[in-house]
C-alpha cells in the first residue's frame, strides 16, 4: 500500500477497482444545470414568501414567552373568577354601594357643617411641639416646688392609724360625758322650780312653806346644831318670830311681803347664786314639798339655812 493516500496511486493495490472508470456514471436531464440556478433562486423566493407571506410580525422572543404568558394569564383569570376566595358580599351590595356612599357623605356633611371651618393659628402645628414641651417643663417645676414641703418620716403611713386612734379617744371622752344623766324634763322643770322657790314665793302664804324642806335637809340641820352660828341664828329667829307675831296681832292689814325681812334678804342675793344654791342643795323631795301648800314652812330652819349660805358665799 502506498503511503501517500492523497495520490491516485493507491488504486494500484486494488485491481478490481482500478479497472473501473472513475468517470461519473450518473446523468442529469438535458439543460438541468442551465436551469438549476434559476430553480434554486425561485425556490429561495418562495421560501422567503412563505416565511413572510402574511406580512405580520411578532415581537422578538414572542413565541418563546407565549407559553408562560398564557399560563400566567390563565392563573390570573382563575384567581379573579375564583368562587373559592372565601369573601362574599351581601346581595346587591355593589349595586347599592354608590348610593350608600353618597348618603353617608350627605349625613357626615350635615352633622359636621363646620368641619371645614375649623382653623388654627398660623404656624400652630409648627410650634405645637415646643409649646407642649414648655408646658411640661412648667408643670414639672410646679410639682417640684410643691414637693418642697416635707412631712415627718412615715407620716402618711401612720396618718391613718393616728386619725383612727384620735377618733377612738374622742368617742371615749364623749361616751364618758354622756354617762351622767338627768331625769326626764329636768331642765324644763328646773327653771320653774327655782322661780317657785324664789320669785313666786310671795304668792305663797306662810303656810305654804313646808316643813319637809327642813326635814329633807335634816342632815344639814344636824350639822348646824353644833355650830355657834346656828345658835345665833336660832336666837335671831326666835326674836324675829316674836316680832312677827306682834305685828300680826297688831295689824289687820294684809301682810306685805316685800317689806318682810326674808324678802329683803333674798332681794339682795343674785338670782344666779340662788340658782346655784338650789342646784347644789335641792334633792328629789324638794319639789313635792314646795308643791304641798297645806303644810307650813319651818321659818326658823329656812332662816338658818339662808344665813349659812350667806356666810359661805361671803
Amino acid at each position, binding site marked *: 500500500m502506498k503511503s501517500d493516500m492523497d495520490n491516485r496511486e493507491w488504486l494500484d493495490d*486494488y485491481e*478490481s477497482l482500478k479497472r*473501473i472508470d472513475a*468517470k461519473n*456514471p450518473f446523468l442529469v436531464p438535458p439543460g438541468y444545470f442551465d436551469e438549476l440556478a434559476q430553480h434554486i433562486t425561485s425556490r429561495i423566493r418562495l421560501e422567503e414568501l412563505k416565511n413572510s407571506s402574511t406580512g405580520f410580525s411578532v415581537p422578538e422572543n414572542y413565541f418563546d414567552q407565549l407559553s408562560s404568558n398564557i399560563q400566567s394569564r390563565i392563573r390570573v383569570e382563575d384567581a379573579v373568577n375564583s368562587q373559592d376566595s372565601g369573601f362574599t358580599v351581601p346581595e346587591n351590595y355593589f349595586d347599592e354601594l354608590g348610593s350608600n356612599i353618597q348618603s353617608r357623605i350627605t349625613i357626615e356633611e350635615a352633622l359636621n357643617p363646620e368641619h371645614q371651618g375649623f382653623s388654627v393659628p398660623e404656624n400652630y402645628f409648627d410650634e405645637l411641639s415646643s409649646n407642649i414641651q414648655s408646658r411640661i417643663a412648667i408643670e414639672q417645676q410646679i410639682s417640684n416646688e410643691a414637693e418642697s414641703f416635707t412631712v415627718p418620716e412615715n407620716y402618711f403611713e401612720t396618718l391613718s392609724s393616728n386619725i383612727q386612734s384620735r377618733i377612738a379617744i374622742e368617742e371615749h371622752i364623749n361616751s364618758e360625758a354622756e354617762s351622767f344623766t338627768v331625769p326626764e324634763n329636768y331642765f324644763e322643770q328646773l327653771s320653774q322650780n327655782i322661780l317657785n322657790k324664789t320669785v313666786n314665793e310671795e304668792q305663797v302664804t306662810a303656810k305654804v312653806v313646808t316643813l319637809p324642806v327642813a326635814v329633807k335637809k335634816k342632815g344639814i340641820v344636824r350639822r348646824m346644831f353644833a355650830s355657834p352660828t346656828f345658835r345665833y341664828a336660832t336666837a335671831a329667829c326666835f326674836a324675829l318670830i316674836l316680832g312677827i307675831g306682834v305685828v300680826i296681832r297688831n295689824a289687820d292689814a294684809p301682810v306685805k311681803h316685800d317689806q318682810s325681812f326674808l324678802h329683803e334678804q333674798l332681794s339682795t342675793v343674785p338670782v344666779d347664786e340662788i340658782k346655784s344654791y338650789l342646784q347644789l342643795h335641792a334633792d328629789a323631795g324638794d319639789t313635792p314639798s314646795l308643791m304641798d301648800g297645806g303644810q307650813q314652812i319651818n321659818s326658823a330652819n329656812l332662816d338658818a339655812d339662808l344665813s349659812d349660805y350667806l356666810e359661805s358665799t361671803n
Partner: protein
Amino acid sequence: MSLQVEDSEILSKFQDEKTRNEAFNLLLKKYQQKIYWHIRRMVVDHDDADDLVQDVFIKVWKNLLGFRNDAQLYTWMYRIASNECITFLNKKKQKNNIPLDDVAYELADSLADSSYFNGDQAQRKLQEALLTLPEKQRLVFNMKYYDDMKYEEISDVLGTSVGALKASFHLAVKKIEAFLLSRD
C-alpha cells in the same frame, strides 16, 4: 468553469445587500454541479438529489451572512450537503421502517430503474458496492474517489480527524474490492 469567481469576491458582494443576488448567482454557478453530484451519489435518485440540492442552497442563502472566513466556502457547503443527505436517508429509513440493508437494496433498484445512469456494468457494480457501505464511509469514499479531495478538506466537511478518515477510507476500499471480486 474557467470564469469562476473567487470565493472572497462572492462573499464580499453577498455582504452588500445591493449585490447580494448577484453574488448568490455567482455562487450557484460555481458550486451547483459539485453539490448536486455529491448529493446524487449519496441518494442515487435524480429527483431526490434535485430536492436536496435546492434545500442545501436555500440554507446557504439564509446562513451565508454568518459564514466565517476561517473555513473554505465549498467545504462549508459540502458539510451542509452531507448533513442533508444523511438526514434524508435517515428519514427514508424511518418512513419505510426498513433496515439499512433494505435501504441499500432499494437504492440499487432505483439505480437499475433510473434512466439517468449511463455507467457500464462495472460502474453499476461499483455503485452497488458503495450502497453496501455505511453513509459516512460512502461520503468519505465519494469525496476522495470522485471529487479527489484531500483528507484535510474531507476532515473540514465531516468534522473527523484525518487519521480516522484514512482508516475509514481504507476500510471502505477493502469492502468495495471484496464486493467487486465476489461478483466477478
